[in-house]
């Protein structure tokens, strides 16, 4: 019973739920990338206010395996971002709930919300982007903020929020 069927069924439920409850004010926009497969999704995140990412719109690519929701989805940033827990070139995200802390009761929206929380609250102790991690650990808030803001302006200001 589990496997591809279970994943597709569950993802269809998630999509129905999203279509019912989405408004323009949301800070997460989440849809399957194409109508042909429910396993690959695209998400847009609004950079949280009071962070160097404010005003930016970041695109994520979400890949679900056939074991979903028993196994976590793989999430990567498509928009370049300067953040200690996001790989600068590949966009990989280092987040415990996407690895061993994953629970099948989480959904894609919850996962995106966790990524959004990570943007507001970076964890410098286990960095994927060492430069960003070192700035925060070294107390150079100003340098981190400035660099992250510059990359936000340079890369994250080109996507319009869908209606």
């Amino acid at each position, binding site marked *: 019973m589990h496997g591809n069927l279970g994943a597709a069924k569950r993802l269809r439920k998630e999509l129905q739920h999203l279509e019912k409850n989405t408004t323009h004010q949301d800070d997460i926009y989440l849809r399957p990338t194409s109508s042909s497969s429910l396993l690959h999704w695209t998400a847009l995140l609004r950079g949280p206010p009071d962070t160097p990412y404010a005003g930016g719109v970041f695109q994520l690519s979400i890949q679900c395996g056939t074991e979903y929701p028993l196994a976590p989805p793989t999430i990567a940033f498509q928009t370049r971002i300067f953040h200690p827990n996001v790989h600068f070139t590949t966009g990989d995200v280092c987040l415990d709930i996407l690895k061993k802390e994953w*629970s099948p*009761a989480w959904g894609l929206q919850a996962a995106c919300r966790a990524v959004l929380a990570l943007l507001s609250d970076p964890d410098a102790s286990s960095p994927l982007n060492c430069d960003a991690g070192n700035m925060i650990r070294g107390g150079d808030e100003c340098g981190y903020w400035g660099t992250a803001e510059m990359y936000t302006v340079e890369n994250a200001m080109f996507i319009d929020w869908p209606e």
Partner: protein
Amino acid sequence: MTAQIREVVDVLKVPPSAAAILMREHKWAKERLFQAFFDNPEKVQEKCGVKARCSCGSGGDEKVAKTSSKNRATRSASKRKHCEICMDDDGFDPDEMISMPCGHEFCETCWYGFIHNALDKGPLCVRETCPQAGCNELVTEEEVARAAPDLLPKFETYQLRSFVETYGMTRWCPGPGCEQVAVARASGGAFADAGGVARCEKCSTSFCLKCGEEPHAPINCRELALWQEKCRNESETANWILANTKPCPKCSSRIEKNQGCNHMTCSSCKFEFCWICMGDWTQHGADTGGYYKCNKYDPNASNDNDQSDAAKAKRELDRYLHYYKRFHGHSQAQEFAKKSLKETEARMVALQEQNVDTVWTDVEFLKTANEQLVECRKVLKYTYAFAFYLQDADKRSRFEFHQEMLEKFTESLSELSEKPLHEMNRTEVVNQVSIVFIDCVIVLGG
């Protein structure tokens, strides 16, 4: 394992499934668990992920657990239950749902998938927590039995494996493909240094209970690990120096040693020499009055007035090589002796056939001799690693004396048991076996 769990159930008044987890999280050290538990039961239960499980069982928390489950029951009686994993619109009958002690419920199908998936992850499945996000209540054999009875044996195998690996008193048999478990009986004695040798009943592999290596008396586990590490690091140099062949000290023809004994006779010039020190064999035999001088390293043999770093390093390397060469020599001889165990059986048959009157027990001495030889080589091998770390000069000279005796008698046993069958003298071999046996005991005792 079952006995240990029962005791914890009795003392702490917790369900057996919770007791197993509590013990595992405390590395099966009962006393430590009891102490921590009586200091602060709530904290221990919380930390180990068995809080809800313990409170639904017996004890003072029973009332609370009952009322809350009654609340749940009345709430869900009115409508069908919802599973947060598959989010099925229709919901499920209450009896299609399986719940954790923490109250989180999921449908049977999702539970099965969840457990199947957890088992695929391997040994860590014994630490799988409730599927609900952020809930740290652990999944136990109770849930597996309800949700996926066909996977229960696999889950229990992982539980046993985790027990054997975390509990200090047990160890898997290292024999290839063997699944036996060894349990040390007494807590103190069996774990004394270089003690605790176990022998598997099934595949008859012998091993040290503490480190799982081949029994390595007289050296202890810590020094053995040091020695093996050193041998790995130095092996490049040692290999370079110790090629598989050696030149004959007299005529320099390359000689490959393919039998166990150290008494070599060059096939081209008939020169007899000792394989270890490459010296003339006539200086070795007890019959010539000389001693077997091959086990001693004499630091004065090289010039030790030179105190420069390079000279010191060279002396240290020489010292290591002295022991390593002998360690390696006996190690190879041990392998030869092991291999010849098979040939010995054939020789036993041949020897029996020589004389019509001989019965099987009359030729069994050959096998005993061969087995004793393997044992002696093994002990000798480790005596060199042991001596390398032996600092006390007095102790070392005493140790080397016994080592020398054992080495001498082992060589002659090796020689005797390799003789052609028609020269074989049973009494001699049997005597030699008992001599080396006593020597082994002395070396290990000293």
